[in-house]
């Protein structure tokens, strides 16, 4: 026994050690991730974010330097606080508070004392900085906007949040990322790739040389400059016209699907979200829940499309062979659904396709719509056919454009009505409003513009997009360069386009003709309701207009949607007319028309529902 005592203890301890070591090194082993290892610090080298140009190479977004005053509390020497505060432009109490905050964060690591000095402050400070030990100036790169327009479509960048960090391991705390619009969509192109240097640290957090002789280090890759399809001048002009109006405008080049302008009103100067005032400005914009300047109406608003939708119903009816261009319907200053008369403003009488379109006759399209349904044995069947045709124009679903947000709009299906009314408990008369673009159909302005482009192309469209060139090379993305065909044959478009051209010649927009340019368009006046204190209240109609020009060789197709702008030819029609002239001619010949649009606002209209008083809608005052 006594001979083996010590030997047994030695063996037992040996086994215990190996057991503990296998627990530590095999079971609990978690390899030091380079970034989590406290002994390694990663120093990043950020490339410059790519510039953004418009379709003609005009600069839209660039970078500007900003200067942060940094402090390492441990290294701060006694200083002339008063003088220093004077230079920084802050008072002594703020200075002390910020300094102590920095010290709480870490005495050894740098903290930001003052964010984003202006260039002037920087110039004054720079030469005196040597005097103040423990303080230094760090250069950062911020966005610089060479335009006051396009805030929503261009988007902005901001610091990554927890969500970004957990979703994408590329980012580390404090970095910037595209938050909305083009900045978000093309984040990876614009930002490039940061370079990284790994530094070995000791336990006092001092650098003691490169980690693994720099073998893991990488060089930064510069961000790419991109050209977007936007037309800077058109975009700026459109936003000027939107002064005091809410709504969205989308202009597309039909031959390519390139978005020429994407305007949302009200908007804001993108420079507001850069620099020292950024957070204050952001709160102001973000919490304006009435006019919602950060809500991009061009791609997010979903009004009923109104009368422009009639053109599609005409196309469907022609394709289905239920009407010919010569087919007529009688208008009784309205049309009967059962025994109730639904109104029409066309003046009444016999209407064919052409006059049905240019006079925007409700009765004509109600009749047409009924005929589509009469062709099929059941409404279910008819509904499926109708839905298929409508969706081929890019309605009722996401369009697939290259911006990070969007809405589907709505083309109601039979399932939708089964849900609302019950299975087999609805018929074409329940859904007759769809014939004139009211009722359940809904579309975003960009969908309306795309639909117009499809009509302009006589039967196909390219998915709208904003990216034109990357680093000087034209993009070649099949998703944007293959045409998408509608289910309507080419020959059926001609009579409809004729009707739309007549709209300008003798129809609802005859006051808006552009000298020397033949335009095809369609007005829309959309009834809409809101709830005020729980009571369903009708508000002034939305003004909608779609148009393309020139009729024979279309270069621009657009949709204008103005909230509560009354009838289609009023605000929307005016703006559409001006934008087309601007784009095709470069300048405006009708100065009075332009002046009216620049000056007139709809603020009084928007104030009505909030006034708390009774108000009139659709007032004719102009």
């Amino acid at each position, binding site marked *: 026994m006594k001979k083996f005592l010590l030997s047994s203890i030695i063996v037992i301890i040996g086994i215990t050690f190996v057991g503990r070591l296998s627990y530590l090194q095999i079971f609990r082993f978690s390899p030091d991730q380079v970034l989590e290892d406290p002994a390694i610090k990663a120093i990043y080298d950020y490339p410059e974010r790519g510039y953004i140009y418009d379709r003609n190479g005009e600069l839209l977004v660039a970078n500007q330097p900003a200067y942060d005053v940094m402090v390492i509390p441990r290294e701060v020497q006694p200083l002339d606080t008063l003088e220093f505060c004077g230079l920084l432009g802050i008072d002594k109490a703020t200075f002390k508070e910020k300094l102590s905050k920095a010290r709480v964060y870490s005495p050894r690591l740098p903290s930001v004392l003052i964010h984003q000095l202006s260039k002037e402050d920087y110039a004054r400070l720079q030469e005196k900085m040597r005097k103040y030990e423990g303080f230094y100036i760090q250069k950062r790169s911020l966005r610089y906007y060479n335009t006051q327009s396009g805030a929503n479509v261009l988007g902005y960048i901001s610091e990554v949040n927890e969500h970004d960090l957990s979703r994408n391991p590329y980012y580390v705390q404090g970095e910037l990322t595209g938050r909305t619009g083009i900045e978000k969509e093309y984040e990876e192109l614009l930002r490039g790739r940061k370079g990284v240097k790994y530094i070995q640290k000791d336990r006092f957090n001092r650098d*003691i040389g490169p*980690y693994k002789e720099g073998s893991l280090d990488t060089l930064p890759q510069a961000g790419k400059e991109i050209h977007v399809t936007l037309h800077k001048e058109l975009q700026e002009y459109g936003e000027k016209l939107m002064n005091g109006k809410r709504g969205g405008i989308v202009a597309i080049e039909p031959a390519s699907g390139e978005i020429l302008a994407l305007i949302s009103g009200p908007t804001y100067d993108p420079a507001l979200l850069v620099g020292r005032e950024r957070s204050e400005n952001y709160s102001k914009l973000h919490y304006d829940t009435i006019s919602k300047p950060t809500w991009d109406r061009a791609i997010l608003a979903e009004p009923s499309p109104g009368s422009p939708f009639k053109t599609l119903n005409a196309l469907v009816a022609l394709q289905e062979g239920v009407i010919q261009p010569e087919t007529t319907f009688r208008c009784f200053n309205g049309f009967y659904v059962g025994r109730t008369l639904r109104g029409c403003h066309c003046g009444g009488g016999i209407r064919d396709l052409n006059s049905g379109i240019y006079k925007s006759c409700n009765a004509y399209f109600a009749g047409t719509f009924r005929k589509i349904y009469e062709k099929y044995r059941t409404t279910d069947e008819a509904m499926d056919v109708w839905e298929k045709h409508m969706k081929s124009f890019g309605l009722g679903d996401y369009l697939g454009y290259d911006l990070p947000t969007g809405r589907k709009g709505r083309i109601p299906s039979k399932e939708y009505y089964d849900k609302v009314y019950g299975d087999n408990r609805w018929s074409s008369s329940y859904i007759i409003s769809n014939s004139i673009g009211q009722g359940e159909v809904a579309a975003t302005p960009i969908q309306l513009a795309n639909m117009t482009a499809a009509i302009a192309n006589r039967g196909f469209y390219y998915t709208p997009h904003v990216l034109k060139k990357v680093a000087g090379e034209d993009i070649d993305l099949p998703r944007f360069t293959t045409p998408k065909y509608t289910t309507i044959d080419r020959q059926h478009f001609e009579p409809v386009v004729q009707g739309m051209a007549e709209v300008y010649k003798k129809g609802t927009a005859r006051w808006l003709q552009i000298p020397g340019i033949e335009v095809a368009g369609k007005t829309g006046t959309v009834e809409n309701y809101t709830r005020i204190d729980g009571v369903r209240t009708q508000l002034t109609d939305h003004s909608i207009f779609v148009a393309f020009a020139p009729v024979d060789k279309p270069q621009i197709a657009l949709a204008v949607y103005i909230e509560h702008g009354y009838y289609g030819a009023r605000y929307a029609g005016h703006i559409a007319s001006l934008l087309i002239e601007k784009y095709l001619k470069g300048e405006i010949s009708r100065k009075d028309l332009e002046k009216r649009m620049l000056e007139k606002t709809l603020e009084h209209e928007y104030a009505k529902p909030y006034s708390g008083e009774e108000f009139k809608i659709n007032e004719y005052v102009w």
Partner: protein
Amino acid sequence: MFGRSLLKRIDWLSILFYLFLVAIGWLNIYSSTFSESHPLIFDFSQLYGKQLFFIAVSFASILLIAALEANFYERFSGLLYIVSMVLLLGLFVFGKTIAGATSWYNLGFFNLQPSEIAKVATALALAKYLSDIQTDIKRRKDQLYAILIIVLPAVLIIPQPDPGSALVFFALVFVLFREGLPLFYLGIAFMAILIFVTTLMYGTIWVAIGLALLIVLIFLLKRSRTRIPLLPLIAIYIASIVFSLSVNLVFYKVFEQRHRDRFSLWLRLEKDPNKLEEIRKTIGYNTYQSEKAIESGGFFGKGFLEGTRTKGDFVPEQHTDYIFSTVGEEWGFLGTTTVVILFTLLLLRLVYLAERQKHAFSRMYGYGVISILFIHYFINIGMVIGILPTIGIPLPFFSYGGSGLLGFTALLFIFLRLDANRLNEW
């Protein structure tokens, strides 16, 4: 001066293990004190360069040890013991203080730590005393003298203060057990430690319940004819509970906070995550960092000179007491088990050698060597991998330090010299 016979008879296997440990130890010292600006391994301004010098000196001392007659050590063990005690006493007057402990003599080029000499001397003196024809380990008086030989250097070392080194001497009781001291004492000591730990972890009530269950178990399992003396059992039970209660009293009234902290760290008594975080940054810093470094090594380790935590000096005292954490980080599980196995093999080999001695003195000294090496190895690695409280003693042959290496080398090679001579003895 040493004939062919010595070269033939010396135990080369032990020397091989020794050389392996010294070599691996130096590589790790090199890694943990290496700096890019001094790439030469013979740079004596650097710690690894100095250690290389100490290794050379140790090798030279081996020659000296081998050159002396084997019975020289037995003959002069008493004198050596007295000299080393005088040296320990002298520290109170002439000692040099390093890191708070007055444990060194400043010899100009070299700091001498007399406690290292005392380890060799005490092992020799104990063997000498026990192997004396007149000594009988079964006799109380002789037990007492033997214990005194062990305790005296410890008493002189404690006030330096260097409790770790003092603790080492108590390992020499293994020699006594080998020579016939009743194992009953060991049983009591083991029981006492067990009660101490379980009381701190679970409290006296659970200790009492646990012991009661143990007694019931004994009664259930005993053969029906065996009679168990009831009275002494009850006495032991009561004594245990009294001891358990006194543990609480001592722990909270006699111990200082820093002692309590060490125990609560060791036994993982603190459960509050905030306080744990606090402990990690203060008293538990070393243990936490060394465990982390070992963990981060994984199975294969990060590779020689690639340990980031080692390079960053995250583990304090890494080239001395915490040298094993470098092994863990850079050589991984493969490296740490290799070291554990080398130590185990060396110690078992020494046990084998000790047991084959015909001469009682050699055997007893052999056991003294094994005990001292073992206690260092056990406490040091146990501390570095976090299963023992923090007690600062070096890892033999590994840790940086001239006195230490020289002391352990002398300790080992005196025994190997005795072993090589075993056939000449009568």
